[in-house]
């Protein structure tokens, strides 16, 4: 099962490092990354394979939110199906 992680907020040092370390700890594999910086706004989207993850998606998603709070970013992890459903016929 794959999920999409979005990281948005004010640009800062070490965001990618912190986020990828977290994902590696959870057993999630990053398959694709897209990142942009508009002014001082940082937006990163990652496609993550969760098949080998050691925890349930909802639990990892909650921890993502907490990580985001700690580093001053908004971090969401969502099942990719929600995006496919809403944007593909």
């Amino acid at each position, binding site marked *: 099962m794959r999920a999409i992680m*979005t990281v948005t907020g004010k640009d800062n040092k070490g965001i990618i490092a912190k986020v990828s370390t977290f994902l590696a700890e959870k057993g999630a594999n990053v398959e694709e990354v897209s990142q942009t910086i508009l002014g001082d706004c940082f937006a990163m*989207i990652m496609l993550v394979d969760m098949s080998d993850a050691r925890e*349930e998606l*909802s*639990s990892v998603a909650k921890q993502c939110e907490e990580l985001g709070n700690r580093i001053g970013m908004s971090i*969401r992890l969502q099942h*990719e199906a*929600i995006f496919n459903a809403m*944007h593909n016929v």
Partner: protein
Amino acid sequence: MFNKTEVLETIDMIEREHLDIRTITMGISLLPCIRENAEKTARAVYDTVCAKARDIVKVAEQLSGEYGIPIVNKRVSVTPVSLICAAFPQDAEKIGFALDKAAKELGIDFLGGYSALVQKGTADYEKIFLESIPAVLAQTERVCSSVNVASSKSGINMDAVAQMGRIVKSAAERTADRDGLGCAKLVVFANAVEDNPFMAGAFHGTGESGTVINVGVSGPGVVKHALENVPDANLNDCAEVIKRTAFKITRAGQLIAKEAAKRLNAEFGIVDLSLAPTPVMGDSVAHILEELGLEVVGTHGTTAALAMLNDAVKKGGVMASSHVGGLSGAFIPVSEDIGMIQAAEKGALQIDKLEAMTAVCSVGLDMIAIPGDTPAETISAIIADEAAIGMINNKTTAVRVIPVPGKTVGDTVEFGGLLGHAPILPVHTASSMKFVRRGGRIPAPIHSNKN
């Protein structure tokens, strides 16, 4: 592969525009719970509801966590209780109390189905059952009630309409200490649907399967935001924007509905593609109409704008779901919509205009506070007018008015939470008494004879 713009659009819809799954409602048949007396039936009802919906809150939280979309309400609807206690209607209250206890045990905010379907006639057991409604609404916290008094096929049961006017008054008086809150949990329908997931009018129809999941989606804020991006578009293009937005919202609902049904061992019933507002800023149907170009909702043009909105929501949503049902359209509950509240406070939105709006949207006169001294016959006449609109136009209409005890025009009422607050709206003071007291049945319209 993912499309960056689409991903960020979804995030924006959820974070800034209040896109949510408004309700996951489990419909449960209570017919197998009928026993020889009220006590045993009440116990079977409690056990059945608790067993079948045991995981509803847990599953909704799981889904919300996995898909990253808020699921606001978890609810249950049941077979109209008048049928379950037809053999002992004088003890119907016991079933109501059992349902309230079950709702509390499950941790859900509302449970619908303390209901009766009397569109063609009221049986003796139903007359007794209807009289139990005010007491049950006063003594329970989470039980909702609805009564269907008319249909396009049967006409309008004016005896039931007369009785419901008195029952609405009585429900208000018995909850006078809470500004007539009992009436916020009581809906009088024409053409009630059997698979509505929204409260207070949800019940589980007898034509339904044993356990069903119906889901209501919502997103007035998303639609308004989409329209803000096309400020100078003509109405063709506005309708297209609404359709496309409704499609996306509904697809999210369909996904959650199917997954919820699977995890709760229930059948997937329908997605109700409604725009349901809340009193929160940015979650208003009235503000969509104002975005279309009305200075304030309630002014001339409101009915046309609402008709377009309602139709575009349906067209966009229908393709997004395998089964569309429930009420499906735009809701216009006055106290639950910040834009409606503001318009009512300015005096721009009156009950007559609201009645016209109900001819083109998915529901009826909803969450309208009226003076506490409004006669029962006037409430019955309001119900009859709405029922006539529903009957003639082959659509669902409903009345959920609150005659607030001790309050009158100029006062406001605060129900709290999702039920919101509202100014008391004036009603016509000329009497409808003789018309209502004639009783009988208004015959079904000629165009109902389709066979």
